[in-house]
Every structure is written in structure tokens, then in C-alpha cells.
């Protein structure tokens, strides 16, 4: 029989704990496939966050470190600086990266830390049960914004990719989404660019991935993908925000 599809060996055989329809599984696979394709499994160290991806170390078939909430970019710095030949990536959600870990991600970018960050923006805290994130949209209902996010009360959502793109040390910043097959293909390309940027020693790279949270958004998976398209992408425009890798 002809093999038409094979799971990448950079994912373990562990069964993902994510909710049905969640985008995390897609992004895990994209990251793992990129690592496989680049042939860097044996020198890659994954830093997983506190949030829904907290068990990432069970799935990424590479040496893995669990970081404290928001601190993955700092901890990853420790691994990278002790041996620059390592490929180090952090995988973080919006609570982890954009809220409690805002200082760590900004300064990793500021130092031009040669690491790659995969930033999952699903506009909500998933693991703790659907609280408001810095990326929650205005009017969006969460358990801590039960009447909808009020911009006069807690500001407007933060655009991480644009913000980090302003920092000199950032080398490659792109925002993608995983709501359609076409966008997923683009997302994989972006992730590959980000890792290649690290391999070329150009500086800090980050891919912001717009993803969904059917459970905490209170939608079916299909509805959530449509909601993402209609509400998130207009506020969080997709595309390359910064790329110095093409410069000579």
C-alpha cells in the first residue's frame, strides 16, 4: 500500500489534550513539521508556557523545558546563550506572552535574542477557564468581562506583532491565522521563515498565530473559525510585519 500521509516524528505519539476543534493541534503539527524539514530535531530545545499548551513537552518530540508563566523568553535565553548552536523556540499563548510575560518578550526582542517564538493569540485565557486576555476584542464577553470588554475600563486589545516589529532587535515578525487551509499553508511558511531566521543568526523571530477557542468562546469549531475570520482578522491584520532576513 502506498503511504499518502505520515505523521512527523517530531511529534510524539501522545494524544493531544486539547479541546475538539482547537487550533493548538494544528500549530503543533506545523512547528514539528518545520523542525523535521529543517533537520534540526537533534539540536532543538522547546520552551513551553503556562496556559493551554502547558503540556507541550509531551507532544514536541524534542528536549523540552517547562517555563514559569510568561518567562519562557528569559529561560530560553539561558539555553541559547550557553550554546548558540542550539535552536531554541518558545511556544506561548496570549496570557503568557502578552500579559504576564510582556517584559520578557519585549526584552528578548530588544536584545535580538536568536530564538523563535510561536505566539498563539486566541483572544482569551483558555486553561484557566475563559478569562479576558490583553488580546480580547472590545465587546467580547469572557468570564472576567461578562458584559463585554469595555475599552474605557481596560483598554483596547494589544497588537503584539506590530509592537514587536518596532523593536530594533526583531528580525522576522509575521501574523498568520489557522482558520482555513490556505491560511494554514501560509502559517507553516511563516514558521519556517522564523526558524530559518534563527538558523541564519539574524535576530529575534516571532510568528503570531490567530487561533480559536471554541470551548471558551462558546461556539462550535466551525462557528469559531468564522468568528475568527470576521472579528479577529480585521483587528489583527495578517501579514509580514518585519523581515530583515532578505536584506543584504
Amino acid at each position, binding site marked *: 500500500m502506498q503511504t499518502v500521509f505520515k505523521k512527523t*516524528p517530531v511529534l510524539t505519539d501522545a494524544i493531544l489534550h486539547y479541546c475538539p476543534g482547537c487550533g493548538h493541534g494544528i500549530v503543533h503539527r506545523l512547528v514539528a513539521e518545520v523542525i523535521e524539514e529543517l533537520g534540526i*530535531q*537533534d*539540536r*532543538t*530545545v522547546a*520552551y513551553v508556557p503556562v496556559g493551554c499548551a*502547558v*503540556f507541550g*513537552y509531551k507532544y514536541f*518530540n*524534542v*528536549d*523540552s*523545558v*517547562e*517555563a*514559569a508563566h510568561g*518567562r519562557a523568553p*528569559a*529561560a*530560553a*535565553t*539561558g*539555553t*541559547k*546563550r*550557553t*550554546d548558540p548552536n*542550539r*535552536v531554541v523556540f518558545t511556544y506561548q499563548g496570549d496570557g503568557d506572552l502578552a500579559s504576564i510575560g510582556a*517584559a*520578557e518578550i*519585549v*526584552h528578548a526582542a*530588544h*536584545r535580538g535574542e536568536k530564538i523563535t517564538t510561536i505566539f498563539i493569540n486566541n483572544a482569551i485565557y483558555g486553561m484557566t477557564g475563559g478569562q479576558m486576555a490583553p488580546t480580547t476584542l472590545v465587546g467580547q464577553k469572557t468570564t472576567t468581562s461578562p458584559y463585554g470588554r469595555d475599552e474605557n475600563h481596560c483598554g483596547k486589545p494589544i497588537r503584539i506583532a506590530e509592537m514587536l516589529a518596532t523593536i530594533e532587535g526583531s528580525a522576522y515578525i509575521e501574523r498568520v491565522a489557522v482558520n482555513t487551509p490556505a491560511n494554514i499553508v501560509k502559517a507553516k511558511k511563516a514558521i519556517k521563515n522564523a526558524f530559518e531566521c534563527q538558523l541564519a543568526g539574524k535576530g529575534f523571530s516571532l510568528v503570531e498565530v490567530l487561533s480559536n477557542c471554541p470551548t471558551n468562546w462558546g461556539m462550535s469549531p466551525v462557528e469559531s473559525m468564522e468568528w475568527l475570520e470576521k472579528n479577529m482578522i480585521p483587528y489583527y491584520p495578517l501579514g509580514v510585519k518585519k523581515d530583515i532576513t532578505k536584506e543584504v
Partner: protein
Amino acid sequence: MAKKLMKGCEAVAEAAIQAGCHFFFGYPITPQNDIPEYMAARLPKVGGCFLQAESEVAAINMVYGAAASGARVMTSSSSPGVSLKQEGMSYLAGAELPCVVVNMVRGGPGLGSIQPSQGDYFQATRGGGHGDYHPIVLAPSSVQEAVDMMQDAFDLADVYRTPVMILADGIIGQMMEPVEFHESTSKRELPKKDWAATGWSPASGRPRAVVNSLYIEVDELQEMNDRLQARYKIIRETEAKAETYNTDGAEIIVCAYGTVARICKSAIAICEKKGVKVGLVRPITVWPFPEKQLKEVMDQPSVKKAITVEISAGQMVEDVRLTVNGAKPVEFFGKPGSYTPTAEEIAEYIMKSREA
């Protein structure tokens, strides 16, 4: 090797490098800035890396990452900064990672002062962060002793897979004393760091490394905690150290650590002139607390009481009381904040206490 006159902070930094520590992550705070400054100048010359982090929180997490990848690594700070590091300390303990953290203690609480203090004893010896853990805590009382303990501090960290803290004070950090650097060699058998996250593939010949302190199942968390407690038991039984001074036939035993212990020695000399024999027990490890050593001295029939002297409101005195366990009176002399008692004041207290 010839003696060099060195500031405590610089000497500690040099001793760490000689002990094989080539990675330092830190953040400026008085009175320990000479350590990061020294590291910034020296580490690039030995093929290492010094990095000034954006905060103490980031610094300790960089230490966490470097340790997770198997490097000998350290950070240093002073009290308010060490408070910020407590999150990281707990994670280091939970993930069973070796590292060395230097605390040049200053007065508190809050921003406090930049003068020497011993107000961080509880934080250091009880763990400081969340969960059931202790770092090993070493308390030097001279620049030479601080230098001499650095090699073992890193070795202890590696052997027991735990953070080790050097608990000193502004005096140790800022004072210059002659120091001699001896060839730094490990006196312990160091385990292989085959658990470190360095990069893996199925061909690596070891299990995939996962450095982690998350054990979501009750049984698994219990297992990790049992492992830590079993280690702490061995540490308590084998690693406690103290200096005893003038204790034979002493009437009163003074218990003090760090710089204060040296001031107590001067106070003991003053009492001696007045015909009163006072001894000193100086914990060198404050966790584990040298219970056996103190108890042995306190059990002497000549000893009437113990007096603990600290630059604090009375922290180590609790360990002294737990050790003496009501057998004899235990008194406390000292002030909170950062008032360093003089030898004369300590002697006066001892003499008065004797008459009381």
C-alpha cells in the same frame, strides 16, 4: 599563590569563575553591583557569557534556562531583588536544577536601606517561594571563606540538583580582605547531567529530556516531593557545618552567623577580660542548620544559656530555640533593619544577661 586584597563581591565573582561558572545573568542593585561588573569584564575573556537582564525576574529565569541545559550558572542580587527571584527559586527547586544565587543582604522590609542586614534569613532558609523546598544556604563570615565556599556551592548544587544560596551581607560584599585562590578542584563526585535539555534525537542514546516542575497528578507530585524530601534528609544529616570558638567550659554561648559572628568574637574578648568565658557557635550552613554541632556545645554542663545575635528582629534565634528545645534559656540580642551592633554593645548585653 600570592594573596590579593580584594573586595568580597569581586572575590566571590572570581571564585565562581574559577569553580567553572561561565554564565551569569543579573540585574543591578546596591550593594552587590561589583559582582555583575566583574562578571561583565571577565566572562567574555574565558569564553563565557554575562548578560544584564531586564529584571531580577528575567535574570533568575535565564539562570533556570541555562541550568536546564546543563550549564554551571549563577546570579546575584540583594534583598529586594532576591524577593523578585523567589518565583524562579521555587521553579528551580521544583525542576531540580542546580545553580548558585548570591544574596548580599540589605535592610528591609520594602526598599529598606543599602546597609548590611540579616533580615532575609527566613526567606533564605525556609525556601522563600511557594511549595515545600529549601535551597542549601551558606553564610560566609570573611572574604576568604566566601571564596573558599564557591567551588563547593556549585558542587553541592550539582550533587543535590538544587539551588544553593550564598547568604552574605553588605559588609562581606564591600569589605576588602586578603584572599588566596587555591587551585579549584571538586571534592565531590559530580553526577552526569544526562537530564539536561541540550538537543535530542532518537539516536542520542538517552531518554528525551523534559525539564519540568508540573506534576498534575497527585501521585506524581507526591513522588517529586518525596524525592526532594529524601534529598533534604541526606543534606540535613551530612552537610551541616558550623565553626565553634572558645566553647570549652564556656558559661554563655553566643550564636551568630556572617559578619555578626566576627563582631561577637570581639565581644567575647571583651567579656574574657572581665573574667567571663563566652563561646561562639557560628553556623556556616544556615540551611541545613547545624543542630548537632550547636546541641553538643549547649549540652555542656558549664553552659547556662545561649544568646543569639543578629541584624534582624530575631530570625535565626528560632532555629536555635528549636535546637535547644527548652533545655536551656535562649535569648536574642539585635535590632531589625540594618543596625550592625558593636562589640561593646554585645559584650554589655552578655554581661547584663549574666547578672539577670
